[in-house]
């Protein structure tokens, strides 16, 4: 290979290294810029009063209390609906079906396709099925159910993964005691995999909190305090969208809401990390000791 040396100094290597670090630095600056902007602007408005007050003047002033309540409602509905389905899918994938058989293959394929569907398509589906066909209208319930479809693949995959990583040793141990398959699952595998399962649930929660396009035309726009799950209510993400595009002069409060959302997501991600680490420790610690 030819080399370009000046006084024993490899010029080409230097140039490429320079380019690589330059690009990395650009990327880091690009990634940090929005985060710092959100922090800088958001800190000006974010306070307890902001979180506990109702929005006034279309959101230009006041706070985001009803919006937080709506968001909580939407997310709770979606988790309640998605969790049993995801658990069923995960159990059948890891314990029920033969992993090479056609039912497992179809199930896995359908999850993969579901995971790739763009969120706006979920919105169309939710509008057509939940809002119109089932006559739920623009409501927290309709939005939550649509979101449930969207987070199902994430949730099912992480549940299946944590059940799988609970390991052969626990399963064989349970079987050796003469327990039935469902008792092993329920009394051995699920308790052992619990930190992993919790991590999966919190991960799905972050997905649900970050979503906007799905909720734009399923859960409605109302910024009043919702009284039931059949009321219309906007999530924090929809509030940010509305303030920044439809309300002139709402940018600062949009940043405040964005900062609140980011802090919540950061807290949840931290929880995921802690739970995952607990799960790993439990797996490596227990199995090596018992074997």
């Amino acid at each position, binding site marked *: *290979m030819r*080399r370009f040396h000046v006084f024993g100094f490899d010029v080409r*290597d230097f*140039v*490429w*290294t320079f*380019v*690589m*670090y330059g*690009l990395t630095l650009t*990327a*880091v600056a690009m*990634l*940090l*810029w*929005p*985060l710092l*902007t*959100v922090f800088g602007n958001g800190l000006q408005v974010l306070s307890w009063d902001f979180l506990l007050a109702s929005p006034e003047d279309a959101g230009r002033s006041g706070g985001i209390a009803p919006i937080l309540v709506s968001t909580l409602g939407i997310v709770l509905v979606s988790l309640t609906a998605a969790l049993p*389905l995801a658990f*069923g*899918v995960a159990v*059948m994938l890891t314990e*029920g079906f033969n992993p090479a058989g056609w039912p497992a293959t*179809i*199930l896995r394929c*359908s*999850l*993969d396709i*579901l*995971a790739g*569907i*763009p*969120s*706006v*398509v*979920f*919105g*169309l*589906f939710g509008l057509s*099925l939940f809002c119109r066909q089932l006559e739920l209208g623009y409501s927290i319930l309709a939005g939550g159910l649509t979101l449930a*479809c969207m987070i*199902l693949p994430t949730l*099912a995959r992480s549940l299946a993964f944590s059940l799988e990583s609970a390991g052969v040793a626990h399963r064989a141990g349970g079987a050796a005691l003469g327990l*039935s398959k*469902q*008792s092993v699952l329920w009394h051995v595998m699920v308790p052992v995999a619990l930190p992993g399962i919790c991590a999966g649930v919190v991960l799905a929660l972050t997905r649900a909190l*970050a979503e*906007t*396009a799905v909720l734009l*035309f399923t859960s409605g726009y109302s910024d009043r305090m919702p009284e039931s799950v059949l009321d219309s209510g906007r999530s924090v993400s929809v509030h*940010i*969208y509305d303030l*920044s595009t439809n309300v002139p002069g709402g*940018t600062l409060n949009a*940043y405040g809401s964005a900062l609140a*959302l980011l802090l919540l*997501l*950061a807290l949840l*991600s931290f929880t995921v990390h802690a739970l995952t680490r607990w799960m790993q420790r439990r797996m490596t610690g227990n199995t090596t000791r018992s074997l």
Partner: protein
Amino acid sequence: MTLLTDEVVAKVHPTKLRGWAFWSAMSMLALLGAAIVFLIVAFLLSESFPLIAQGGPIRFFTDEGWWPRDASFNMTPMVLASLYLTIGALVVATPLSLAISLVTTFKAPARLAHVLRNLVELSAAVPTVVYGLWGVSSIVPIVNIWSPPGASLLAGVLIVALMIIPTITVLTQSALQTVPTAYVQGATALGVSTSQTLLRIVIPAARQGIFSAMVLGAARAIGETMVVLMVCGNIVQVPTSLFDPVRALTANIALEMPYAMGDHRASLFVAGLLMLLLVSALVAVGEWVGMRQRKMIS
């Protein structure tokens, strides 16, 4: 007395009964979970079919323009806008993601690599609407100084690129990790400089994984709604320059769905169906190539 043979006891034993109930419940739940994707396709098809049947699928590219009230549904400008946005975002994001991945995997000291990886993961969790908000209030005014109105293809490309950098970086990193260390050690032993090892040996060895990362990034970019809705200006036209405002296919669905009726509504479901097909095809290609990368090494 002979009524209670072992066989009969075993058959009605509560454990067996409970087992049967448990597994049928789990199967039903799994069936329902698998059915959602078929339900989505069925709904999109049934809502869009009346309009597709009226003039064949070609009409969506040959009609006079996008005037949904006058039954003219030409989606070409919006499809092109989506494609330009995706290709532009890939062109911007790929070199940056590749650089971060190479630096974190091979060059940087462990602590710096750890910090960089955490930054990438953190950015991956940022909601797209927050990127949109930042784009509207930071990038659009800057583009506006340069060439009004600011809300443009360029702004969209930059912000979508930023949004897919984490996706591409994470996937590229795992592709680079599949390259056997023996390749790198061998090259170093032969006296090849670090940059040449990375450019001539590591990148070619991981090229399928990198390609897969790009395709999956493209799938994410083309399906993205909020950013393109907020920063691209939303004017239906084929862009002639980077500074022209455009309307992407996904943004169009989000904009017109709340009030669309009849054929107009059906046309939006056609757009949704098109989006679903495009993204599924991209994901399938990306996953397939990515699998080949993982197989090639192991």
